């Protein structure tokens, strides 16, 4: 079971990475929509709300098909508002599924993320139900088909004694009360989705809900152009006494209808229940034991100066400041292990290196560098002493290619966990340059790694790279999937530039304590 789950995660990750790589080779990785699938889904919800509010003004429950036809016939706002609403629905569901697959592939589906996962599954379910009611509202031949398919499923449930299907039999007009109820549900479900989205990101600190501006405008303008050039089709008005030969197709809602047509509703329910059960079970089956790389962060209260930085940097809001139980006047940081996802970002935010998952705090990083990396930097010319610090999520091929260029590879779980003192130590003890390559910021599995690293290295965010460090010897860059060649080229240019600089004297055996911010009563 565990290996099956692991294999599925790996397969998902590799598939998405291959798509990323393809995208990055031809287009600008900064705007890769696959990295933005969650924000795109959230943004499309807003687009759907705005266009939906407009459409509702012209919708009539007493004459649903005629009112939608009138909207579609309005060559100006009506037609394209309706089409944008339709196409945004499809895009929303596609984006949500890609986003779900992405977090699954990055093993971000368990532990404190379980709430986000399960509410995400619910958001997709409610989104599908909402799309369903939307098509019924239009009451064209496709709406009739969707309504009948839904009624057939509903009728096997022991809820109503009168079959819902009878409403559509044609012996009396479909009552406007039905369309009123349908409209009510169509408006109520998005309200639920609003609450669902709030729940979805409620444990995430500083959730990003909007894609970057070019994507935002690109999507809105693209949808409008699409709506004008290829308006969404509307079938002939529903007639219960007609058997249309075909209906329009819809990517997000109707792919399952031919599969369900003619099948027993109980079978369809069983398949749906199975899919939902599997989706909801994901956080439980992907759960990792909280040890090794998944051990929660801890604070060493002796080292904590109460600076509050880790609480500002933790992407999961897992750290709070609490009163100390000794006589020092400051507060002390406290990690809630139930909220901590073990990303290790806090390890790099703490100047005195007093916080982080066991084995990954700044202190552990320095010790590791000293024992494993520095010995290799004692000899060789400047070109052979450039250290490449790579995020473990970057392309596997990158390691070999950088190695072939003479880089000394140091892999970290995320560059956001790299304490700036490590860079300083490397440069003072033999490295001629430090090249740090991470993931595209919106693809960071730890959410905010590249963002904090950039601020720490170049903009004095705590725990900042000290001013005494020669910035010409440090390069922070992004290594997007599929662009290993470009990253290597960047490395080579950087290496050549640092080799051309005067080489600094290697400081022998510096006291690690010097690298840390004021250390009161503590020892390394």
């Amino acid at each position, binding site marked *: 079971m565990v290996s099956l789950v692991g294999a599925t995660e790996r397969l998902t990750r590799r598939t998405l990475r291959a798509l990323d790589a393809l*995208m990055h080779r*031809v*287009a*600008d990785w900064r*705007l890769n*929509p696959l990295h933005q699938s969650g924000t795109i889904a959230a943004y499309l919800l807003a687009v759907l709300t705005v266009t939906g509010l407009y459409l509702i003004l012209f919708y009539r429950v007493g004459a649903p098909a005629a009112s939608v036809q009138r909207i579609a016939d309005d060559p100006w706002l009506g037609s394209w508002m309706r089409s944008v609403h*339709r*196409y945004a629905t*499809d*895009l929303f569901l596609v984006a949500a599924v890609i986003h779900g697959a992405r977090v699954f592939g990055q093993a971000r589906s368990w532990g404190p993320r379980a709430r986000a996962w399960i509410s995400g599954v619910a958001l997709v379910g409610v989104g599908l139900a909402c799309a369903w009611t939307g098509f019924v509202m239009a009451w064209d*031949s*496709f709406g009739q*088909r969707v309504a009948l398919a839904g009624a057939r499923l509903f009728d096997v449930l022991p809820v109503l*004694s*009168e*079959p819902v*299907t*009878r409403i559509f*039999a*044609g*012996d009396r007009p479909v009552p406007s009360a039905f369309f009123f109820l349908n409209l009510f549900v169509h408006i109520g479900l998005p309200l639920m989705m609003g609450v669902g989205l709030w729940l979805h990101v409620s444990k995430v600190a500083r959730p990003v809900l909007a894609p970057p501006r*070019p994507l935002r405008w*690109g999507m809105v303008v*693209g*949808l409008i*152009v*699409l709506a004008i*050039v*290829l308006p*969404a*089709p509307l079938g002939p008005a529903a*007639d*219960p*006494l*007609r*058997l*249309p*030969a*075909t*209906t*329009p*197709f*819809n*990517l997000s809602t*109707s792919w399952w*209808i*031919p599969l369900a047509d003619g099948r027993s509703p109980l079978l369809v329910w069983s398949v749906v229940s199975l899919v939902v059960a599997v989706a909801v079970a994901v956080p439980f089956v992907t759960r990792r034991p909280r040890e090794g790389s998944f051990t929660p962060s801890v604070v060493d209260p002796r080292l904590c100066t109460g600076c509050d930085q880790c609480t500002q940097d933790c992407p999961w809001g897992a750290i709070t400041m609490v009163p100390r139980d000794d006589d020092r006047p400051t507060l002390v940081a406290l990690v809630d292990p139930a909220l901590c996802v073990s990303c290790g970002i806090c390890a790099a935010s703490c100047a005195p290196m007093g916080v982080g998952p066991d084995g990954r705090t700044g202190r552990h990083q320095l010790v590791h560098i000293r024992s494993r990396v520095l010995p290799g930097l004692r000899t060789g010319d400047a070109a052979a002493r450039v250290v490449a610090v790579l995020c473990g999520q970057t392309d596997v091929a990158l390691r070999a290619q950088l190695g072939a260029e003479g880089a000394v590879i140091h892999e970290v779980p995320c560059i956001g966990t790299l304490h700036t003192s490590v860079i300083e130590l490397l440069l003072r003890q033999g490295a001629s340059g430090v090249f740090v390559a991470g993931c595209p910021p919106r693809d960071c599995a730890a959410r905010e790694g590249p963002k904090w690293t950039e601020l720490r290295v170049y903009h004095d965010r705590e725990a900042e790279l000290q001013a005494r460090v020669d910035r010409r010897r440090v390069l922070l860059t992004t290594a997007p999937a599929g662009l290993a060649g470009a990253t290597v080229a960047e490395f080579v240019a950087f290496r050549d530039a640092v080799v051309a600089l005067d080489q600094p004297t290697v400081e022998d055996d510096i006291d690690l304590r010097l690298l840390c911010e004021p250390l009161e009563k503590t020892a390394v």
Partner: protein
Amino acid sequence: MIWLRRVVLLVLGGLAAWGLAASSAVDLPWHGANAAALRLSWVARPERIETCRDLTREELDERPAHMRQARECVGASATYRLSIAVDGQPAVERVLRGAGLRNDRAIFVLDEHPVAPGARRVAIRFTRVEPFEAPMDSTDVRRGAVPRDLALDTVVTIPSTAVALVSLVDGRLALKLP
């Protein structure tokens, strides 16, 4: 060359958008070009068949004061046989009961049969299964209960893509075309 990569992104986005719109323009087969159907749809309140008897004076005296009801009935709702034949070929033969756990609610008749378009002889019967002269002491025709025997035997021309709907109008089976 970042602008070139953004142009490529724009083109890819355009292609995806076009794919999305094109998928919406696809016709999804439903009933096919030459479909026609016979649909039955009505609600029938079943009769209630009861056996009643008058209690004797002695029996009444034995009961507590609040339970002294002179006439006592036990019974059940009638069941109905639905049979449909198209062009002389039996299509359906089924016994229907009222909805609900005790089958005392209405019977919801809803049946659809594909038929070939054109002139079809349609024969439908909906009759009570329990004999009219029930072996029980009495039967009670409820207000609003469905007639004991409903029949329709007619020739109807059903165009292709149309449904011929049989429903219950004023106590009789009636046929409607679009």
